């Protein structure tokens, strides 16, 4: 049996969020594999499970950063002279890509968890390459928008 929950959890914090969360904190560990964690197989080393979860959270923060960046470009940047659509063409793709990264992160977490349960090798993630390409493309588009704005 693996360790469950966090015994040092502050009870006051539970009350703030409500009875639903408080009830699930002490939920017993199910005998069957949890939904979305890969189905059959054996429970992996908890350190690897935690590491997989931290990777998912890191990608989630990246997704949120992309959303914030897109929102910031649209709202906080001054309009580009001569390019009225400039802010939206930069900001909207970032926001959309943020949602895509969040969904892809969950898919990766499920795939890695399944591989660990079944003792299979972890597959290579394409997300870093995808992120790098999108950032590079956005940088090029930004440069084009700035240049067009300067020339008009």
């Amino acid at each position, binding site marked *: 049996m693996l360790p469950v*929950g966090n015994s040092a959890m502050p009870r006051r914090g539970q009350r703030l969020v409500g009875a639903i969360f408080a009830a699930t904190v002490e939920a017993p560990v199910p005998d069957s594999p*949890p939904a*979305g964690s890969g189905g059959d197989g054996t429970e992996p080393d908890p350190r690897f499970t935690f590491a997989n979860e931290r990777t998912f959270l890191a990608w989630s923060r990246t997704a949120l950063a992309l959303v914030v960046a897109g929102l910031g470009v649209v709202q*906080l940047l001054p309009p580009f002279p001569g390019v009225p659509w400039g802010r939206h063409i930069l900001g909207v793709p970032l926001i959309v890509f943020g*949602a895509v990264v969040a969904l892809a992160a*969950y898919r990766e977490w499920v795939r890695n968890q399944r591989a660990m349960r079944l003792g299979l090798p972890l597959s290579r993630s394409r997300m870093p390459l995808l992120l790098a390409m999108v950032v590079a493309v956005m940088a090029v588009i930004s440069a084009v928008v700035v240049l067009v704005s300067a020339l008009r």
Partner: protein
Amino acid sequence: MTPAPGDPVDQGAADPPRLDPGLARERTSLAWTRTALSFAAVGGVTLEKDVIAGLVIMCLAPAVWQLGRLTHHLPGRLQLITATIVAVALVALIVAATH
């Protein structure tokens, strides 16, 4: 003697040996805290143009932090985080399109 992080913990002959997660739980808890702070940051930026949407997103921060306190045997919470981020992105798109 306290076992070092990563050392097998003696569970007796009946149970299979398990590994002590060591500080992995604390690191994961901190990662959840950073994620909750990220939600608060998104809410703060959204607050600039849309007060209600910004406040709603900011209120998600303590809920996300609390989700991180739940046992890792409840993977539905990761689905919830994913769905929340997609919803936040949709709200951001609406705010970006209307302001």
